[in-house]
């Protein structure tokens, strides 16, 4: 554990100084760690993978908040726990309200659309289910029910896929703009 902390912190410090090889190694080391962390806590592999990606994006976009004088693992799991709590709050709210469409039309997505960005390339970053759900509902203009039956999944599953996919895309686009 202590050895791992030193190893991860070394990679992070190099990454903060702009070493992209160390950064690549760091993220590749983190992915399985996070996968284990989330999988133990949410059960579903798909959801765990979503959270792994959200956490990696957060590690990337918030990397300036890492204090080199403090432990890396505390920082990392601080982010992971936050994303986990956020997931539980969101899925709870989703189940309660069952109405996400107004949230889907966020300003982040609008500005992303107006910028000239290769949508297909962005969609390729998503798990297929999410990419397809977004393509069907937001680009081809199908209803959620139609999109769900085309993909052979339940309507709530489709709704969740669209929601998660869009959230990830907007995080991605914001991260790139910076």
């Amino acid at each position: 554990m202590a050895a791992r902390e030193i190893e991860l912190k070394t990679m992070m410090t190099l990454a903060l100084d702009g070493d992209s090889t160390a950064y690549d190694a760091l993220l590749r080391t983190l992915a399985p760690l996070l996968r284990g962390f989330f999988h133990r806590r949410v059960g579903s592999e798909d959801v765990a993978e979503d959270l792994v990606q959200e956490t990696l994006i957060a590690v990337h976009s918030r990397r300036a908040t890492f204090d080199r004088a403090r432990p890396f693992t505390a920082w990392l799991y601080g982010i992971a726990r936050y994303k986990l709590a956020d997931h539980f709050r969101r899925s709870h709210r989703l189940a309660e309200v069952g109405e996400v469409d107004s949230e889907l039309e966020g300003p982040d997505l609008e500005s992303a659309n107006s910028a000239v960005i290769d949508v297909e390339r962005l969609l390729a970053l998503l798990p297929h289910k999410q990419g397809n759900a977004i393509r069907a509902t937001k680009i081809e203009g199908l209803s959620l029910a139609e999109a769900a039956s085309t993909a052979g999944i339940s309507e709530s599953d489709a709704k969740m896929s669209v929601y998660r996919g869009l959230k990830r895309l907007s995080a991605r686009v914001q991260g790139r703009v910076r």
Partner: protein
Amino acid sequence: MNNASPTGATERLIESLTRDLQPTPRHAVPARLTVGVIAGAAASLALLLVVLGARPDLAAVASSASFWMKVAYTIGTASAALFVAARLSRPGGRPSATWIVIVPFLLYLPVGLWELASTDTADWAPMLLGHGWRECTWLVVALSVPVYLGLWWAFKRLAPTELALAGAVAGLSSAAISALVYCIHCPSNGAVFALAWYTLAFGVASGLGALAGTKLLRW
């Protein structure tokens, strides 16, 4: 084949994140908080000067110890609250030292008690109520809004994980800074007055900051 698996998507994500990596400045967090606070404080000061104006006897009062003790109380509280806010803006930072925000109050308290002890009890009420305690409390809270917005802007690129606590401390920082700004206008110098009404404003701003924080500070 690999394309369809979720771990494949994670692979591609890592590749895209690693591309064009830029070095990160070491003091990005304090730098961003400083910019947010200064911009907010400047807006608060501009509002005060335009809407309320400085007290006419500011030059004269600037030589009195009681004026400067009041100023020190606001600066002390602002410094302690900003220190805690900076810690709360980073994941994994245990907010162990949150209690330090009340240290300036505890240091100022004896001054207030001494003021009471050296004043006839019949004059306690006017001393406490000063020239307008309601106005004072609500103006400090109102002037804290621009500072809170500045801190919010700073926090947006940072990563607070305890949103209510971070919001409360941001609210307290904002009110302490706006109280400092308000000293330019505030006609009352007394420690008893400031201990009561500035502190009430700090409490109100902390509560509102916590409420707003749970919504605004999400990331």
